[in-house]
């Protein structure tokens, strides 16, 4: 199962980050995926550099964490996470807290494991997060280290994933709550069609508009 930039943009749109607000100049030009039906101008790249873009190390740490918290069958994590993280950083308060949390996680890895978090094998990243108690910590934006990591790293990433159609699909729902996936999916018998009553419209028609 492959995540795309479009998936990240769909989640960001749900969070109110749209259009030119997401500057992705440091990434590849848009692909068919990222400009597909429904994403509209969301896939277009903002012009020029963007001061809000989190530092490379932070983006790498978030991608490395994504590889741990997402199911192993998922591909395309770097592009998805980077797009999401950059978009999310449009919100100044969130950006700073996320940058701080990711930086702290990297610092802990360097202290305990003598390596950047992103350079650790995936199993060690998973173990480190669990040793910090992040799996059982309550997500608290300004809480203890584990609580902050849970909120700004793990839950940020899980939210991006499971509120996206592609992430939702993996567990049986292509129109998860938080995603404006239209008013046809609730009438279908299965994720891939099989409508129950007279049909009309297409799958996610109107889906990613935010009205």
């Amino acid at each position, binding site marked *: 199962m492959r995540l795309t930039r479009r998936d990240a943009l769909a989640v960001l749109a749900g969070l109110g980050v749209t259009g030119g607000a997401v500057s992705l100049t440091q990434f590849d030009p848009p692909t068919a995926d990222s400009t597909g039906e429904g994403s509209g101008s969301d896939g277009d790249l903002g012009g020029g550099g963007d001061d809000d873009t989190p530092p490379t190390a932070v983006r790498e740490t978030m991608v490395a964490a994504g590889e741990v918290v997402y199911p192993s069958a998922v591909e395309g994590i770097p592009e998805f996470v980077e797009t999401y993280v950059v978009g999310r950083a449009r919100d100044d308060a969130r950006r700073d807290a996320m940058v701080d949390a990711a930086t702290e996680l990297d610092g802990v890895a360097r202290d305990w494991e003598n390596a950047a978090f992103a350079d650790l094998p995936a199993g060690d990243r998973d173990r480190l997060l669990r040793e910090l108690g992040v799996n*059982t910590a309550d997500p608290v934006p300004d809480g203890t280290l584990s609580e902050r990591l849970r909120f700004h790293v793990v839950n940020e990433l899980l939210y991006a994933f499971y509120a996206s159609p592609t992430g939702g699909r993996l567990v049986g729902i292509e129109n998860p709550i938080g995603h404006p996936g239209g008013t046809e999916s609730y009438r279908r018998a299965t994720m891939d069609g099989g409508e129950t009553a007279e049909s009309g419209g297409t799958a996610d028609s109107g889906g990613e508009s935010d009205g």
Partner: protein
Amino acid sequence: MDRTPVSDADVCIVGAGPAGGIVAHRLAESGASVVVLEAGPRFDGDRREQLERHIRPGLGGPWEMGGARDAFSSSGESFYPLNAARVKGVGGSTLHWQGMVMRLHERDFELDSRHGVGADWPIGYDDLRPYYAAAEREFGVAGAADNPYAPPRDEPYPLPAFRPSHSDSIFAEACERLGIDMHSVGNARNSEPYDGRSPCVGYGTCKPVCPSGAKYTAESHVEEAEAAGARVIDRARVRRLEHDAAGERVVAAAYTTPDGETHRQAATQFVLACGGVENVRLLLLSDSDRYPDGLANSSGAVGRYFMDHLFAGAGGRLDRPTRQNHVGFNTSECHQFYDDADPVNGLKLEFLNYAGPSPVIDALHADTWGDDLRDQLDESYGTHVSMGALVEQLPREDNYVGLDPETTDDLGDPVPEIHWSVDEQTEAALSRANEIQTRVLDELGVEDRWSVGPDETGPAYHHMGTTRMGDDPESSVVDAECRAHDLDNLWISGSSVFPTGGAMNPTLTIAALSVRLAESLRATLG
């Protein structure tokens, strides 16, 4: 922002939910000078912040309820979770509401005459019928005329009904075999663009927030009132209504703003629209030498007969996909048993489109991640079904809203005390709802069953009955026009005027009464 009083106001409305918003809009449009005082803030800007607050743990509730401003006490046999049951802000509790809307049945207006219980309303269904139609246009109700149990109506709904869900089609097989009729249900939610708002786009989070604006909130009416010239002052907490020396008229509403200043808003007419709990509190706080038991309370009925609807539910799992949690509203109900007389309490059944957990919310609370989490979510999502029901509670004097003199809010005013319990007759009606639900679930072969009945029930957050309407000033607070018996220029808008509450969600009836009140009040302005 300037929060000082308006000079020469014709009408002062306290509260900017639907009960206040609709009256404000109608009167402002008719040329009256209107000021609305609203205790809560305007929730301007991007609704997506509230969306995230709802989905992600750790951010607090979306509508900022529950601080010192909102303190209350609950003294009855059943705890009443008041701050889950209302919102303070421009739009009022409709910011959070679900948005199911339907008319009361004819029998609801004459329970005493027909069945010897509760009370009769001083008006009947026919009096309210044209106002129900107006209310449906105000909200932009999506509905269809396929409900054989609905009271008579003359005109189609403003918008087409949302089509039945896949989940409904599963229930339909069993209901058909059992002779239980399913039909559409009114939604104050755009199935098509209406009133400048978007159609539903399937965020699935209607309660507590619709980021697209497809769900009606009273913000629409407040905006329209402002466009027609009304002045709306947010964060203005009305603490006392003051009357003239003769005790015949209200002369001013005293309100406090965030800077700690207290102002007096004078007006010719006053409309109380603070919801079924705060309406009472404000009347009781406004006691005086002339009215030692509180304003408009010579009957002693202010605060008495507090009613809510009670929830009954049952559900479980099937061995096939049930496709829940795509949208946050229901598309089918059953009103077949509503008018039954044994027990006499009204009851309606709901077929839920949001049974069981949502994977994203589960994920954010899980204590694992990666493949483990995926397996957990795969197991927890996908095969749930459930039915809900609302059950009527009859008015009883010993269910009341009062003041708790021992506890004060952040301004030093006594907080509301909710004294509430669920009587045996209501419990019998809850059991009856469970019985029907069980028949349906048995027929479907639902496993892993749970139910919410008399022992687990809770309120549906509809605050009714506490300033009841009636012809007799000895036993009621307002007359059939919603005007206080005791004071000429005081009107009460909202479900606190309902003498009985039926088992239908109340807000369409609130809106119908508000349109009617606005008409009567307008006539007094000349």
